[in-house]
């Protein structure tokens, strides 16, 4: 048990007891969904089905249903892939990096952030696997035993690195997330047992892997969590670094940039936190979790958004500077074309959304405002989508030989598939919110006595002088 400075704002408000935490978080699982849930769920499922029909149409006929062409070989497909992968980043950062840094505030948000990661990577996987001309042969990208002679994958290709990076990332994230869920599933199972609902009890019994809550279980749980956190931490940096190498190792002006790996990681965290903000703001309202996801949480996330947004902004400006300073005609033109060419709107959209808009969070009033956060988090995600579009499409559409310069226009099929992944994401997330404990309740309980509002108050009453007491027993 840790004691926390009374100077710090409490992380759990509303005088919650241990039992109340359990009931609060189990409520959405045990109760019935309201009509809003059903409405949003219906829309999401519809989008999901529509998107996958578009995908089926593409698989049935050809990638030509999309707008890409001889010059712009990648467009919405890889834009969406990088965007979704980026969104996934916040989850791992929150659960792994913040765990290692012992940031307790992460406990209220890590579960849903990780869920978001899983779903986002699934959406990303849709694009990365389906953007190929013959997706049924995608398994050739894995170095598998085969009878094709001595044929294996090309380890020089950044796409091969990508395959390893993304699949490892997804696996580790999934395991880490599920591990955290096990004790909570145990708690839910026990509640269903008490309530006499054998069906649900059975389901959660299976899901909890027979969690017993003994000291040995807990000890192992803690150990594995730490190990996985250690494993996940480098993944936070590796995945997007490697994704960025798809571009950075090429000869395309505007892609061939050494700044890409750190810049992509910062951008990914930036967009990931924005997405977490968007989701949690809705969730805390709908599931009445205001006591757990507090303004303080929102503010923390906004601070990270401002930090990473500024990093991204610095990266943009460095790119611009280097493109001019290098004196390379193609590099210089690529960036000038981004800003003033036919796709200028996407560049300025990116600049406004990613660099200027997060600076508003310097004002405390804005970063603690729910509505402002909601609006700005969506703006940031739009901006990050534009960033990927700018990098991919505007670099490709005018590269070396002006004779091959052309334009790219998306088709309804592509837009449909993108809508479909958004539908898929929300479908999964809504199901998650109704069936899984959306907050890591076992973890949260560990900080109730140190960071709960009423305990802080009691402690403050006992020792009025503000003594910093941070050592744990």
């Amino acid at each position: 048990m840790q004691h926390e400075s009374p100077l710090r704002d409490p992380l759990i408000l509303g005088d919650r007891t241990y039992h109340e935490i359990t009931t609060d978080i189990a409520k959405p699982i045990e109760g019935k969904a309201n009509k809003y849930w059903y409405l949003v769920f219906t829309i999401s499922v519809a989008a999901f089905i529509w998107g996958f029909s578009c995908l089926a149409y593409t698989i049935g006929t050809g990638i030509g249903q999309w707008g890409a062409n001889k010059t712009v070989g990648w467009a919405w497909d890889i834009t969406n892939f990088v965007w979704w992968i980026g969104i996934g980043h916040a989850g791992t950062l929150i659960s792994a990096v913040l765990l290692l840094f012992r940031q307790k505030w992460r406990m209220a948000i890590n579960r849903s952030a990780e869920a978001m990661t899983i779903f986002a990577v699934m959406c990303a996987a849709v694009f990365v696997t389906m953007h190929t001309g013959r997706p049924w042969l995608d398994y050739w990208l894995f170095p598998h035993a085969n009878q094709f002679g001595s044929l294996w994958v090309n380890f020089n290709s950044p796409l091969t690195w990508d395959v390893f990076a993304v699949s490892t990332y997804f696996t580790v994230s999934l395991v880490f997330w599920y591990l955290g869920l096990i004790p909570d599933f145990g708690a839910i199972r026990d509640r269903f047992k008490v309530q006499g609902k054998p069906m649900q009890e059975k389901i959660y019994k299976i899901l909890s892997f027979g969690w017993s809550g003994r000291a040995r279980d807990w000890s192992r749980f803690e150990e594995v969590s730490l190990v996985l956190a250690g494993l996940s931490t480098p993944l936070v940096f590796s995945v997007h670094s490697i994704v960025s190498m798809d571009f950075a190792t090429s000869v395309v002006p505007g892609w061939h940039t050494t700044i890409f790996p750190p810049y992509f990681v910062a951008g990914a965290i930036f967009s990931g936190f924005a997405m977490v903000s968007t989701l949690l703001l809705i969730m805390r309202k709908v599931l009445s979790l205001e006591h757990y996801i507090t303004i303080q949480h929102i503010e923390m996330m906004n601070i990270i958004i401002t930090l990473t947004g500024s990093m991204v902004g610095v990266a943009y400006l460095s790119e611009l500077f280097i493109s001019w300073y290098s004196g390379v005609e193609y590099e210089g033109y690529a960036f000038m074309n981004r800003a003033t060419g036919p796709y200028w709107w996407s560049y300025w959209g990116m600049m406004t959304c990613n660099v200027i808009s997060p600076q508003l969070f310097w004002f405390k009033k804005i970063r603690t405002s729910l509505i402002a956060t909601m609006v700005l988090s969506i703006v940031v995600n739009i901006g990050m989508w534009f960033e990927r579009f700018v990098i991919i499409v505007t670099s490709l559409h005018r590269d070396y030989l002006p004779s091959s310069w052309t334009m790219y226009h998306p088709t309804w099929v592509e837009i449909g598939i993108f809508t479909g992944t958004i539908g898929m994401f929300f479908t999964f997330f809504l199901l998650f919110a109704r069936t899984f404990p959306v907050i890591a309740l076992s973890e949260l309980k560990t900080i109730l006595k140190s960071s709960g509002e009423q305990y802080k108050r009691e402690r403050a009453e006992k020792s009025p002088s503000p003594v910093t007491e941070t050592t744990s027993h």
Partner: protein
Amino acid sequence: MANDKQYWKGISQLTDETKFAEKHSGEFAEYIPVEDFIGDKAKMETSSTNRRDFLKFLGFSTVAATLAACEAPVMKAIPYVNRPDDITPGVANWYASSFFDGHDYASILVKTREGRPIKLEGNTLSPITKGKLSARVQASVLSLYDSARLKGPKMKSGNAWADKAWSEADAAIGAKLAQSKGIAILSSTIISPSTKAAIAEFSAKYTNVRHVTYDSISYSGMMKANLSSFGKALIPTYRFDKADVIVSLGADFLANWLSPIEHARQYGITRKVGKDKKTMSKHFQFESNMSITGANADERFPVKPSQLAQIALGLLNGVGGGGSASNVMGTQVTKVADALKGARGKGLVVCGSNDAALQLVVNEINKSIGAIGTTIDWENPDYTHQGDDAAVKKLVEDMGTSIDTVIFYNTNPVYSAPMALNFGAAMKKLSCRISFSGMLDETAAMCDFICPDHHYLEAWNDHNPRKGHYSIQQPAIRPLFSTRHAQETLLLWSGNKTDYHTYLQKGWKSNMLPMQHTFGDFAAFWNSSVRDGVSELWPATATQTEDEKKSLLGITKKDKDKSDTISANDESAVVSVSNDSVSFTGGTITLSEATSQLSSWKGGKYELSIYASTALGNGAQSQNPWLQELPDPITKITWDNYITMNPADVKEMKLFGVEGDDKDAVIVRFDQMEDMLDVVEITANGYKTKLPVWFQPGQARGSIGIAVGYGRKGFNEIIDNTGANIYPAVGMSASGTMSYDVYDVQLADAGVEQHKIATTQSHSTIMGRNEDILRETTLAAFAKDERAGNPRPTMHTYKGEADVEKVNLWNDFERPNHQWSMAIDLNSCIGCGACVIACNAENNVPVVGKDEVHRSREMHWMRIDRYFSSDTVKEEEDKKDEEGKGELGLMEMYRHMENPSFDNPKVVFQPVMCQHCNHAPCETVCPVLATNHSSEGLNQMAYNRCVGTRYCANNCPFKVRRFNWFNYTEYHRFEKTNLNPAHDLLGRMVLNPDVVVRSRGVMEKCTMCVQRIQGGKLDAKKAGVRPADGMINTACAQTCPTDAITFGDLNDMKSAVSAMEKDGRKFEMLEETGVRPSVFYLTKVWNREDEKAHV
């Protein structure tokens, strides 16, 4: 009924029944040790895994069978039951033949595989085309497999067509012909002596037969002028290779004028420079439309069509032959005239107009500069264009009166005749109309009978394109459908039942055999002529006696007997018809008449110049998808015709929302107009039609250009919807000459209407990247320094400035055996696109249609980039900036650079195919190693391995990789009509079996014709030698009329490509990227004083 009979199986059954029964109780009479084979008997019986093993095997086999069933469907191939003698499956047979469609002539070799013609190549024995072909001739093999071809004779009953047997059709037509008052045969130019003989026989049988020659692109005016100047209604042969100064007045002699393949080749010779040749021809062009000839000119002067009169008179005046000083471009005309005077005997003036007066003045200029007999060869007149406009006019007048029956042979006047002729109406007055068309074209559709002729690759014929030059057209395949030689049809109707093959032989025996000196024996002569495809034959001079002739020919009685064996028994000779004795009804014109006519030429606000496009020519092959998808060399537009208009005129017409005097308002960025073009209604010579307007820099102000060959009707949904027909707007003078220039046309904005256009290159300038992409210099600079305009690219390194070749991140590959390479001489490339079609045919490149081209998804493995110069030159602007005088900001500068010079841009063509980089960026990024490097320097594609990530295409700096966005051979979107040849079974016959048809989702690109390389290597190996230079050639290099492309082995020190590699003009595209291309280019040299040679 019970059968109590017993049949013994042998004597043993009778003698020892029990033993027999024992022996036969088992399945086999003898003991078969099955169990012993399987293993230990006891163990087998006790083993409990037998059943499980069985189930495992069962499961495995079921799964294996199921998986095997998932494989791609099996396509059936039917083997030869009896192999034909001359066919070895997998080995191509080549046949010499000839192509002539009334517009283009070429001597060809037909490559057939398993009996199917699949590719055409030039016949190197031909003194005219010398082994070179144009895009149109290359593409003609595809029209053989056009599913729109007629399958047999047709007869109209009411408004419907009925298929008939030949005998029925012949009987019906015979009855009609017998009743005819007057019969006319309307044909395009016929240069075949045997065909003319057949027509003569037909004319002899029926009284009142008139043969009229009608060319849709007519040279009648030229013939009239020549008749006046030289007394011969013929067209001479032009010798561009002997000309130092070439002046063209609107003649597109590299793509469409008279004999373009020959001219291009000759022109190429004069344009080549090298170590030992530091001179080249100087080419001036006066024209209104930007043609490829004009684009290649050293100096091009945009003038309105009517102004050509002034120019011609000015030139005549300048060279001292009369005329009057030009009041249009006076100084330039004087300069050109001075150049012509300076090159006496080595100058040549050609004119593309069909106006006799203008041509007459041009004749006078040529006479004045001593061109006759040097650059203009009257010894070998050209027979390929004999159209007689006045005779056509007369025929139309007589139709319905003295002529009631017309036979149409290889001509389509309903589509192509000027509106003034009113051909369609005259046609309705006839009582009998017969067409020999192989397709249901516009004219055939109005006929009563269609007796389809063979496709030329199925037919025998002979050609006499030039005096003394004969060539045989040999069929390369049995007729696919129930078609018949038109000549045979004519002979049959005249009562001669000889088949045309025999008739042809008879003709050659009676007429051609006596003209030669090599063979005494007809069989040998015939076989040699057919094998070689071409023969040089000169009529014996009249002064020779009969005996002299005989001794000259070495004919003995014995030889004569022998020759009989090959020919038909019928000894009757075929009448000899010479192309020299062409009837011409156009009359003559004097110089004073001509001068006064020319002086009175006046143009309206807008003048129209109708031209034949490089791809479609006169439109005879409009239905050919390869040609439709061949981008126009200048506009890069496919599948359409359009109005070309100077951007300044567009501004004046306030099209595209351009309004006001704002300088920026005129600056239209080409990529933004790639989608929709404004449509304008044009009225010319009373004909109205609507066409989209395309900005054409270099188009003379106040003039517009429209290509013929589009707007066909009755073919299929796609061809019928490409462009509009402009032939009706062709003018018809009182004397009956067709005029392709209309001096006053009305244009009206068609309001909101817009037209979608598909171009393969939407960006037209090089954006100041000359240094890296294409290098140019002037002849003067080149003469001083071979490396002029071609400095070695350098790079900043920590050790200082270094040659980019020295800065290398990679290890070089070893090239133990060959190192294939390709050199492209930018100075010879004229941008004609023959290579593109040759590549399409050789490599089964799919046609994707307008919609896909519009999406920038054309599949061409090679393209010809075309760059216009811009008014804003980066170097100059940078210099101004350094001096502090810069007016434009950086962004403004780039924006201005995107716009070509409107008035008269310089143009450069650059063929681009896979550069086969030795450090290929595509290879490193492919995750599955589908694209990799050969030890011979080729960048190869393993289609089967390709997953289709398209990463390689993104990483290709040259953007030469092409992705199969769809299954072009199966997907129904490409099924409509014969868009993609590989879509229907008939069209598939054109596919080259040596090259795989790529499936959907894989990347493809130029392979440097790897199948030809491998084939050549095998041939060399069989011969026990190394492949000699020239033994292996790519399709593009083979066909190139100017020899701009050279393929060879860099490891072979004696190869042509090795020599070029050491040339001072050698450069690589984007050398500083370090990709080390195997394809290199030679600097473009301009013969102009202007120091600013650059695009």
